[in-house]
């Protein structure tokens, strides 16, 4: 009896190992040369290095964002959530959401929309009985989000820890969940989410095509894919100024504020290596999305790509 059980267990292990083999092969065999900033590394090395980069910057991530972009990153993220225009009851998956910026903005937006909805409902009701008014107040307390939920998924534990602390500090508890997961292999079932966002994260994914396919898989039909990322500036003069700022100022800021030159050197190099707007649009279309479009913010320094699963 025990022997049979052992056999079955071994078969299960074999099955999972076979399943895992293609993934392992991809990493272990010298693998295609990938880029880490301007260096050339193997796939495994790249994952490892990126993990270490974010592990070391996690605590100072928000401070650095503010100082590098002079606070403009907040505007970009606000524009992303406004573009999303979520209604109460929306399920959002925020991948590479780390410190939770998009998630918090989503919650604020949905709360505001919900309040407006409830106020409009109250205005239409004339001659409410005391019982109805009482019930209305009861509802408000438990329904401020209207069943909307956001799941923040990130591959880096440190970033999630910082995000969770921020959430506690700012008082976000309802409708917010944290998961440690790989964007190339999401732990979610098919057709689950209304919106999938990835803000300043897709640049760090090693296999962008896999991440896009996973995004397509977990979205409901009719779901929206939104990607906010640094992109290419076409204007030559601006491009030169931007390069100057990126390579001369940002790593110095990184050293002064976060004590980490190399991570921020990686950051600016990875921006240069990332495919430009049109190429990313083609990749998103390849994954199966329709109506793929992008919107340049600040002349192309940042771009929001959007696609629908139809």
């Amino acid at each position, binding site marked *: 009896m025990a022997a049979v059980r*052992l056999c079955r267990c071994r078969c299960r292990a074999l099955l999972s190992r076979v399943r895992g083999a293609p993934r392992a092969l991809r990493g272990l065999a010298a693998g295609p040369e990938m880029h880490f900033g301007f260096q050339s590394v193997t796939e495994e090395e790249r994952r490892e290095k990126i993990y270490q980069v974010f592990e070391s910057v996690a605590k100072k991530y928000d401070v650095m964002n503010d100082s590098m972009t002079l606070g403009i990153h907040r505007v970009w993220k606000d524009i992303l959530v406004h573009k999303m225009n979520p209604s109460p009851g929306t399920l959002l998956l925020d991948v590479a959401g780390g410190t939770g910026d998009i998630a918090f903005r989503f919650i604020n937006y949905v709360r505001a929309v919900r309040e407006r909805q409830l106020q409009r409902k109250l205005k239409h009701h004339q001659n409410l009985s005391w019982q109805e008014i009482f019930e209305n107040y009861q509802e408000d307390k438990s329904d401020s989000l209207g069943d909307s939920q956001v799941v923040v998924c990130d591959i880096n534990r440190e970033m999630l820890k910082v995000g969770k602390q921020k959430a506690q500090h700012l008082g976000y508890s309802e409708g917010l*969940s944290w998961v440690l997961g790989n964007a190339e292999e999401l732990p979610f*079932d098919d057709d689950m989410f209304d919106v999938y966002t990835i803000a300043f994260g897709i640049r760090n994914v090693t296999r962008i095509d896999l991440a896009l396919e996973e995004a397509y898989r977990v979205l409901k039909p009719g779901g929206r894919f939104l990607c906010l990322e640094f992109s290419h500036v076409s204007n030559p003069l601006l491009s030169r100024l931007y390069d100057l700022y990126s390579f001369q100022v940002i790593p110095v800021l990184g050293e002064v504020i976060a004590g980490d030159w190399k991570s921020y050197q990686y950051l600016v190099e990875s921006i240069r290596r990332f495919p430009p707007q049109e190429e990313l649009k083609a990749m998103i279309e390849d994954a199966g999305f329709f109506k793929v479009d992008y919107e340049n913010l600040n002349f192309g320094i940042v771009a929001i790509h959007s696609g629908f699963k139809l």
Partner: protein
Amino acid sequence: MYGKTLHQGAARLKTTLAHSSLCGTHRLPAQRGAGPEAAAMLRGGGRAVAGLLRRAAAGSREQHRDRDPGSRIQEQGSGSARPQPPEPSLLRFLVCPLSKKPLRYEEATNELINEELGIAYPIIDGIPNMVPEAARMTHKKPPAEDSEQP
């Protein structure tokens, strides 16, 4: 009696907690039931007894409110991390990243278990770790930190 079967540090911990009014002997049978995994965790707890006692004292006050025997066992064993069960709303979304099949939440070890493949994903600090490298095979019994490539 229990000091014989468990590590010295854990035994000291238990007697200290037994004195505190909130924890009674009704917990100990549950510990015995948890088996070798609980013993392994208690062994780990024995190494950091001082900090553990402080945290356990604070934690047990909270957990008395929770009335959750599973996490009380965890409290003694896991040392620095006070495990919180994940939110039920999150549990309905999560599936195994490899097979995309639903998972079962195991309160005793605070893990999400995929029966089919025989792997368990740990939940640390209330955040489930759904990366295959972090999963452990349930039919072996390695410590949770071992990374297995399934």
